[in-house]
């Protein structure tokens, strides 16, 4: 069982060398460290965007979702495509404004558009609360992968610590270039591993993909279509639309858009990324193949479906390669999240309090904060706090609350004010947090509505509250400004 361990160790070392080597020839000022001096072409931006899409959540979560829930997992495939179409029209405008004003983070954008440092601070705090659990998820996934693929030869604690150290070193040294270049290795690995598993396992175990689905449908009727209630087709449609809006609102996603050399990079990516997304299909196939072959995994254990099946079916050296690919799916997004969180703390919190701080001071503090952010994430990962799981659910709905204020700011005559943007974001975040912690659904809150609306993703309520506050408070503050002017 030493072969998988050697492969995992080599992968960590390779990622470290590639990440650190990515620095060569670039002096790491603020704009270089955070957004690669806005010089990335189509391929590097593609890899950065793809790097965030295929995280450990995709590898373990999407296969586990398909294994545990069946059809509702299809939403993960659909929302990215719609997000890319939105991105085609939205990102060139965001990018051009960010370039013109030397913006390096998502709070920068909103603070500058609405001319309000306070708004920038509010957005940063919400972003950081959303990012830390996301980083914890990557480290938790890393621990699961290394323990499973190493046949228990490396403990969870050691795996998480090594992963955190590797990421910290190359993020501090190379910034976003480190993430982009380790992304190259990750995408090659994950693409080959997922294609192989998704085609080989159904054929080997069931005689084909169609035959596999027929067999599952016979054993578990209704598993491959949406249920009539709960996670119904209406849940599917509302969830796809809601998550598509939130997609580019993750601060690290928006920041990686700033790296582009020109606006056409996004338009071309809107053509290619939907196709690339289809590798998710093969992740589903592995999850579905596990349904009848490694049954009985419940709750969080369903995330182990992919590895249980691989360990049960394939020789150790293949397990090692699958594990190595899995390790990279944790390291690359982890590095971008850690860098973004540190940048937000330094530039948008420290920088807002100390306006005279130079860019060199900001980037120095950000680099010092990377190990701090990683240490916090490692702490939550190893203590396994259950609150963090709830925070993670809330994270996506938190960042989605930036969407109305950001989109409205792209239209100059919209009349949205900074007070309106703040009120909208705060209202949306408060409602989203309350909905998550109380486990409310649209049906439990408004039981008199027709069934399709009861099944809508509950996050829509937070977004509606946000938009209502944005419009109402903007209208009031604009009138007051007009009255003072008279």
């Amino acid at each position: 069982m030493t072969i998988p361990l050697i492969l995992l160790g080599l992968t960590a070392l390779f990622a470290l060398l590639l990440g650190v080597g990515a620095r060569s020839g670039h002096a790491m000022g603020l704009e270089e460290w955070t957004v690669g001096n806005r010089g990335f072409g189509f391929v590097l931006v593609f890899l950065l965007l793809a790097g965030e899409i295929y995280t450990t959540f995709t590898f373990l979560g999407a296969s586990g979702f398909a294994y545990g829930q069946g059809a509702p997992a299809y939403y993960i495939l659909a929302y990215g495509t719609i997000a890319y179409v939105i991105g085609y029209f939205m990102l060139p405008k965001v990018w051009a404004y960010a370039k013109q004003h030397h913006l390096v983070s998502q709070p920068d954008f909103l603070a500058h558009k609405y001319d309000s440092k306070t708004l920038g601070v509010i957005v940063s705090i919400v972003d950081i609360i959303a990012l830390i659990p996301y980083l914890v998820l990557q480290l938790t996934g890393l621990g699961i992968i290394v323990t499973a693929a190493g046949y228990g030869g490396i403990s969870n604690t050691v795996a998480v610590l090594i992963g955190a150290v590797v990421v910290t070193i190359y993020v501090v040294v190379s910034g976003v270039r480190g993430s982009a270049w380790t992304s190259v290795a990750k995408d090659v690995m994950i693409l080959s591993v997922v294609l192989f598993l998704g085609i080989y396992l159904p054929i080997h175990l069931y005689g084909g993909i169609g035959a596999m689905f027929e067999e599952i449908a016979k054993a578990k009727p209704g598993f491959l279509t949406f249920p009539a209630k709960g996670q119904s087709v209406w849940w599917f449609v509302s969830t796809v639309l809601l998550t598509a809006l939130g997609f580019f609102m993750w601060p690290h996603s928006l920041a990686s858009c700033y790296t582009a050399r020109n606006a056409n990079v996004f338009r071309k990516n809107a053509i290619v990324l939907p196709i690339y997304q289809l590798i998710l299909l093969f992740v589903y196939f592995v999850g579905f193949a596990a349904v009848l072959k490694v049954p009985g995994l419940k709750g969080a254990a369903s995330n182990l479906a992919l590895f249980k099946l691989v360990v049960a079916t394939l020789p150790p050296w293949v397990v090692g390669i699958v594990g190595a690919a899995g390790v990279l799916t944790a390291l690359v997004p982890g590095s971008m999240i850690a860098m973004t969180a540190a940048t937000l703390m330094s530039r948008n919190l420290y920088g807002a309090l100390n306006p005279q701080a130079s860019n060199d001071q900001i980037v120095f503090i950000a680099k010092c904060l990377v190990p701090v952010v990683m240490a916090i994430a490692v702490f939550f990962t190893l203590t396994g706090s259950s609150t963090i799981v709830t925070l993670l659910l809330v994270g996506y709905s938190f960042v989605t609350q930036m969407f109305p204020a950001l989109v409205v700011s792209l239209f100059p005559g919209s009349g949205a004010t900074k007070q309106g943007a703040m009120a909208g974001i705060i209202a949306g975040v408060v409602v989203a947090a309350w909905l998550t912690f109380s486990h409310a659904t649209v049906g439990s809150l408004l039981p008199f509505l027709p069934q399709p609306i009861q099944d809508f993703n509950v996050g829509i309520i937070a977004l509606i509250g946000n938009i209502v506050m944005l419009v109402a408070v903007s209208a009031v503050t604009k009138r007051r400004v007009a009255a003072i002017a008279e």
Partner: protein
Amino acid sequence: MKPFQFLAIVPCALMLIGPLVHNKLHPFILDMPFPLGWVTVWIVLTAATMAVVYAIDPANKGGDR
């Protein structure tokens, strides 16, 4: 809204309408259950549509800024 922008919405809408109209296992599309196969086909067609939108979008005529 310009006509080519409307064009981009069409495949997205059709992708989501399919499972709403026909949430059944059969017929299989590309060896997959109907809702999954339908979404897959429209993802490919969305990419194709975006290629057309890219070709006719006047914003690209100015070349790289």
